[in-house]
């Protein structure tokens, strides 16, 4: 199976790297930001930090479509930050399964990315039970990375 992992290049990446044992034996590639942290990943596509720059967001859309059409992953998994937004919406159009994992740092309040991606995620996980009540019925708690 081919798994696409998408997240920003800092703590969200550290978090997803804690989960690698679960993906063992599958073909894995990353979509992440350029940075010192992500420079050590082997199979990756990088882009400039989207932050809150609307123009960069728009420009990232064709790039993301290109990557997903070329790679055709079976599932896309993200631990967050805004990079997941163009990727998940493109995945929706291309009918690729998605899983969003709200970051461990989100204890009582959803992240903005989480709120935006909740409607388009096939599987939506939170890492603290008290966060379940802030989302709809789709949200699930399967434990956390601690």
């Amino acid at each position, binding site marked *: *199976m081919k*798994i696409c992992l998408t997240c920003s*290049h*800092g*703590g*969200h*990446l*550290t*978090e997803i790297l*804690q*989960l690698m*044992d*679960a*993906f*063992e034996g*599958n073909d894995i590639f990353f979509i992440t930001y350029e*940075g*010192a*942290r992500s*420079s*050590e990943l082997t199979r990756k596509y990088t882009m400039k*930090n989207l*932050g809150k720059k609307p123009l960069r967001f728009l420009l990232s859309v064709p790039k993301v479509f290109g990557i997903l059409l070329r790679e055709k992953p*079976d*599932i896309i998994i993200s631990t967050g930050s805004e990079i997941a937004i163009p990727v998940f919406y493109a995945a929706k159009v291309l009918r690729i*399964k998605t899983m969003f*994992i709200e*970051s*461990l*740092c*989100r*204890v*009582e*309040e959803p992240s903005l990315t989480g709120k935006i991606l909740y409607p388009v995620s096939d*599987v939506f*996980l939170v*890492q*603290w039970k008290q966060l379940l009540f802030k989302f709809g019925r789709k949200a699930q708690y*399967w*434990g*956390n*990375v*601690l």
Partner: protein
Amino acid sequence: MEAVTLQIREKSPVLGECALIFVTVGSHYQGFDRLVKKMDEIAGKIDEKVIMQIGNTKYKPVNAEYFEFAEYSKIQKLNSDARIIVSHAGVGSILTAFEQKTHLIIFPRLKRYNEVVDDHQLQIAKELAENPNVTVVNDVEGLEEALKIDFSFVEGSNGNRLVPSLKKYIFSIS
């Protein structure tokens, strides 16, 4: 609850071996002057070596070695070599400290000082306050006192329960 075994690591400042304090503020785009300034001041007063990862902080330390960002392997090595880590309440920094089995002093970023976009760091700090490998400090004046403690790392207080559930799911859709 599994039994917790107490492991004393040879990182004691008393022994003088690898007496290093590693300060880290992660990759967040806002700076963290409050922590870097205070730790720089403390570094000028103590014998222990202090190395700081300052990220996007404007203030540059004068009493301690520092760098802005580094590849993960270097960060992991500093986490492992340090007697203690002083960190913002960022999940990446917290997970790396746990992975390298080093006690961690957490000093949360606050929105009111423009250190972070919202106060979620306070929430994670509160959740981790009971963890034996974490000391939460909320006031800069408390940092110096916290550093005097001779910490040891308690094994088995964390367990990654998300991995087995994820593994099962991935297997089910394969």
